[in-house]
């Protein structure tokens, strides 16, 4: 394995295998799959569906689509701030198990950040898997006391007169930050806008920058 300089060391982010190793592993898995299909223990359909769910529905793209829609459609935006759960469901994203979604808007005057001080409550269906730092004790304890310092660690600096609001998620309420639309994006399409919205900006620790 090669050495990496990620902030959280993760030796698994890159494949260090060569083609021959991959070929051997592929054959091993194909053999297992064939056996299980033959025994009727798995079905091709179920396997394809599961891959699709975990690979495609777990990412923050759903949230990015919500943000992009809010940026271009004032009526949607209005509905989003009135009742985020139902507005988000309009885009086909549901699966919240009784939790209410609340959308909070970043503006030049107000910056919102989300945390779960008790555990790691997170708006799954829109943001996918929570990042490791979101669950860390350091983030959970520090963001409430020194939000500006935490923001600075993410490279986000705010003017002194910007009000910082920290929202504590719970089993009942999950927050989604709608970041500010960056200048210079007036001509981007909805999908181009969604592509520039990164997960961290919807937790509120970063801002969205123009491409």
């Amino acid at each position, binding site marked *: 394995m090669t050495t990496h300089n990620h902030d959280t060391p993760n030796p698994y982010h890159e494949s260090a295998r060569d083609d021959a190793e991959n070929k051997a592993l592929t054959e091993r898995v194909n053999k297992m799959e064939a056996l*299980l299909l033959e025994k009727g223990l798995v079905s091709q359909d179920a396997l394809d569906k599961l891959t699709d769910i975990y690979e495609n529905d777990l990412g923050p793209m759903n949230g990015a689509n919500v943000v992009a829609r809010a940026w271009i459609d004032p009526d949607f935006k209005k509905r989003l701030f009135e009742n985020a759960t139902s507005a988000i469901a309009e885009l086909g994203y549901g699966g919240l198990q009784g939790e209410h979604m609340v959308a909070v808007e970043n503006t030049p005057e107000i910056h919102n950040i989300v945390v779960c001080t008790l555990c790691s409550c997170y708006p799954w269906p829109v943001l996918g898997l929570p990042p490791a730092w979101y669950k860390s004790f350091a983030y959970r304890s520090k963001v409430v006391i020194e939000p500006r310092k935490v923001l600075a660690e993410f490279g986000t600096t705010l003017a002194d007169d910007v009000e910082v609001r920290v929202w504590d998620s719970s089993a009942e309420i999950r927050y989604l930050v709608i970041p500010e639309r960056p200048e210079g994006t007036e001509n981007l399409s909805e999908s181009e806008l969604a592509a520039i919205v990164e997960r961290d900006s919807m937790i509120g620790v970063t801002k969205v920058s123009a491409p």
Partner: protein
Amino acid sequence: MNEERIAKPEIAEMNGAATLPRKNGEMVFHDDWERKSFAIAVSLANQGLFDWAEFQRELISSIKDAEGDNPLHPSRGYFESWLVSLENLLEKKLAKA
């Protein structure tokens, strides 16, 4: 998106050594066999061949094996350990069946 389309927290939110490889919140698969072995394990657990907790224990132990005393340079990647644990568990379960 209905209930069935939702990933299971017990799988997606595994912690510690078992944490799924991910980038910007999304799962990272390098090769198709990784994707496939992931789906096989989840599917078998969904069918009740084993509990997810059982698989997770197996996975953690095979990751620890691969790490030895050098956790940053394991002898094999996450999904290779995944595959090893899946093979071990299958062997046990199918021998019984």
